[in-house]
């Protein structure tokens, strides 16, 4: 009987789907890269099949699978497979000045929303009731429209201060509609009613999509007689258990870049550095701080809809291995088009007709791929394009930096052969082994996080007690999401005092993270429950 000690990491990107197998010592045993398929699940299935057949892979040892995917984003962008949602806001008579989904693209609003209402209730910033909660209005609304809804999204004013009106509304949904999916805003987003409501509605709409991807993956694994414990990667580069991901699919929506940065950290053993992830179509430059991606202070837009999720703070440029080179040597034009996953047919060095940045890398001696003889008359254009691409990359690096002085850059991703060894502002370029699978490695290194983002009212013992309460809650959330209780640490604390108020109130955001619990036990362990 083989030992049960391996993890399978899968990352679905814009161009390729990557898969790796790591053992319990975090060694990469096998990896695979396949082109994405339009339906995503085909690419996942193929990546699984390929990596399990790779030399070094022993499928029978796999106990856990971790998936980072763009399927949720694509579902929103393409309006595909979205569930129908009844939208309830608890906040009248406040908040009527901006109704739910105001400003959404019309086709997305009509694809997602069955009906929306704003009922009396909600919380004040200091925890009082805004007005009494109107449960009858919720029941009436559900009586009228509930039959057409696959799910219900509930958002109350100041739910981050107290979720009690959301919980009351959820009870009424259960009473009226039975076991229909309910998304509650306090479990999904932070302060900022409209962004949190948007995220909550999207979450309810995406519940089916997450289930489909999970089933497709399970089917692909079952074909190899594997039934590992399944995790999804989320926006901050940490994991959540499958049952958690099925309930909060929107939290997986930006996991790709975070996975690459986490993977770069892991492959190099570095906690603080710059990271350039060069793919087929674009390059993301981000910052690794304290082992995690530095997060943006701005909420992220998904398909034109503002949410208040924190995403990795990235500078993204249209520069990738498949990026098309045009113009002349004096003025090369780089992208933004890319041949994407058709690189192996279209690039010059592979016998194609389209000059790409991969050809530039070969022409300037940075990579030996395909047949350099096929570059021919394009040589000077390609060399000039490489210099121009270096300038674009240097500019992106400079924009993401937080301080003067040179820093190390970790180059990862299949297109990172484009990155030169010398770049302004960079002390050294680190090219880890398995650089081309850093994203899938990042998914598989198995860290789990918990977060708190709420308004606190520091009492007599003030700040300290509020911070302790928030930290404790974040740790509990991390453990609930599957982290090993012995390994959880606070990785980030942010305090933002509320301005223009005479009573002290402070918004506190704490993140805790730790290694996945029970990783090296036999896989009879239960899946960690979601909070």
């Amino acid at each position: 009987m083989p030992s049960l000690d391996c993890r399978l990491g899968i990352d679905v990107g814009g161009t390729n789907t990557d898969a790796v197998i790591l053992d319990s010592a975090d060694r990469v045993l096998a990896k695979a890269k396949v082109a994405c398929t339009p339906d995503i699940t085909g690419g996942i299935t193929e990546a699984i099949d390929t990596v399990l057949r790779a030399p070094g892979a022993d499928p029978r040892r796999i106990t856990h699978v971790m998936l980072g995917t763009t399927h949720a984003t694509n579902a929103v962008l393409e309006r595909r497979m979205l569930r129908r949602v009844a939208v309830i806001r608890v906040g009248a008579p406040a908040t009527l000045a901006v109704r739910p989904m105001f400003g959404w693209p019309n086709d997305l609003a009509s694809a997602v929303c069955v009906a929306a209402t704003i009922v009396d209730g909600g919380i004040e910033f200091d925890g009082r009731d805004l007005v009494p909660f109107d449960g009858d209005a919720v029941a009436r609304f559900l009586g009228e429209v509930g039959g057409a809804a696959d799910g219900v999204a509930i958002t109350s004013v100041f739910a981050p201060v107290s979720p009690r009106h959301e919980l009351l509304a959820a009870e009424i949904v259960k009473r009226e509609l039975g076991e229909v999916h309910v998304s509650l805003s306090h479990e999904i987003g932070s302060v900022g009613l409209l962004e949190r409501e948007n995220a909550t509605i999207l979450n309810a709409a995406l519940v089916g999509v997450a289930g489909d991807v999970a089933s497709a993956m399970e089917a692909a694994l079952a074909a190899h007689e594997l039934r590992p414990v399944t995790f999804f990667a989320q926006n901050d580069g940490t994991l959540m258990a499958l049952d958690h991901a099925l309930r909060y699919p929107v939290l997986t929506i930006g996991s790709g870049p975070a996975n690459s940065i986490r993977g770069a950290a892991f492959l190099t053993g570095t906690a603080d550095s710059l990271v350039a992830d060069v793919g087929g179509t674009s390059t993301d430059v981000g910052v690794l701080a304290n082992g995690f991606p530095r997060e943006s202070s701005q909420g992220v837009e998904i398909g034109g809809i503002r949410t208040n999720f924190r995403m990795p703070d990235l500078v993204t440029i249209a520069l990738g291995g498949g990026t098309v080179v045009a113009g002349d040597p004096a003025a090369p034009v780089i992208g933004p088009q890319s041949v994407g996953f058709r690189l192996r047919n279209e690039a010059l060095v592979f016998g194609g007709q389209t000059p790409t940045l991969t050809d530039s890398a070969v022409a300037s001696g940075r990579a030996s791929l395909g047949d350099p003889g096929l570059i021919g008359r394009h040589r000077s254009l390609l060399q000039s394009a490489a210099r121009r691409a270096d300038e674009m990359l240097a500019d992106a690096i400079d924009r993401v930096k937080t301080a003067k002085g040179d820093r190390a850059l970790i180059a990862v991703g299949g297109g990172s052969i484009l990155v030169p060894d010398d770049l302004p502002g960079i002390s050294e370029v680190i090219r880890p082994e398995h650089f081309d699978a850093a994203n899938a490695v990042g998914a598989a290194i198995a860290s789990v996080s918990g977060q708190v983002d709420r308004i606190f009212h520091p009492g007599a013992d003030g700040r300290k007690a509020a911070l302790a309460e928030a930290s404790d809650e974040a740790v509990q959330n991390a453990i609930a999401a599957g982290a090993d209780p012995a390994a959880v640490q606070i990785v980030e604390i942010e305090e933002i005092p509320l301005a223009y108020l005479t009573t002290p109130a402070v918004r506190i955001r704490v993140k805790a993270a730790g290694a996945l619990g029970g990783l090296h036990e036999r896989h009879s362990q239960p899946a960690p429950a979601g909070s």
Partner: protein
Amino acid sequence: MARLLDPDSLRALARGCAILGAGGGGDTRIGLLEALQATEDYGPVTLVGLDELADDELIMPCGMIGAPTVHIEKIENGSEGIRLRQHLEDVTGYKVAALMSAEIGGSNGLNPIVWAARIGLPVVDADGMGRAFPLVPQVSMHLAGINPNPCVMTDERGNVIVFRTISGDWTERLARAAAVEFGGAAASTEYTLTVAQAREATVLGTVSLAIRIGLAVSTAQRSPVAELIAEVGAFRLVTGKISDVERRTTKGFVRGSVVIEGIGEDSGRLLRLELQNENLVALEQGRVAASVPDLISVLDSETAEAIATERVRYGQRVTVIAMPCDPVWRTDRGLQAAGPRAFGYDFDYVPVEELASAVT
């Protein structure tokens, strides 16, 4: 010159108000959504000049008082302004002819439009500050000796208080306390005045100025920051990166400082901003580069989007600009109300254009 404010003008106005907020006044994004929804539901609002209104008609200065963080969670009902107007008319016995923003900087630059759409009255192309300030009596009407009474406040539930005070300072004190009881934010009107008075006692043309600023930024062919500076005659203090942020809250006001480290042509320079809800003072090598009541705004170097004091973060790429304030703030009374000493600094105000020319 009366003009209808279409959605594009409202979007430009929101950008402009954020920049005129000088770091304070609250996020304009929700105010914009409210204005877009109100004008979609009730029809567009007319912007009028004071010369288009009769002398003895009433102008209602109005806005929200309280915490911007409350505002992004507890969005307004939309009918607050209807009650302000009704009670103001009941108490004074005069008809309100138009609404005016008490404060063009930040979210209060948009509130009167939301309410005017419902009421069916125009909005005046003027305000009480030409920027954002934290306190109720820091308005041009106060400097001109206009009585703050009667003050009317209301919330989204329909509670109304009408009160009279012996001074603008007492109005500030009572209104701030009431705003907390209302749940951290409330709608208010004070310093009501006639059209004839308003011609002397307000900062004129600021709504159209904010729209021009917004359009300069959104239609810029090359650098939005450069277009903005050209449009308003602003002074560029530094272009660089935020290299240090220190913030604390005392008595309900965010205080702190921000250091910007120059990059590119400003490489090697360090600019320090002192802030207290708004950006108050810019210092370079111990020398004042700009100060209140002139406007100091921190802009995203690429998009020229204003970055509020609450959202300034380490590592951001910013350009700091300073704009001359309205002359009313440069009078003795103006400096007493909102000059450097009013905010606890021990130096005399020097206009930004003089400070800038002293450098070059």
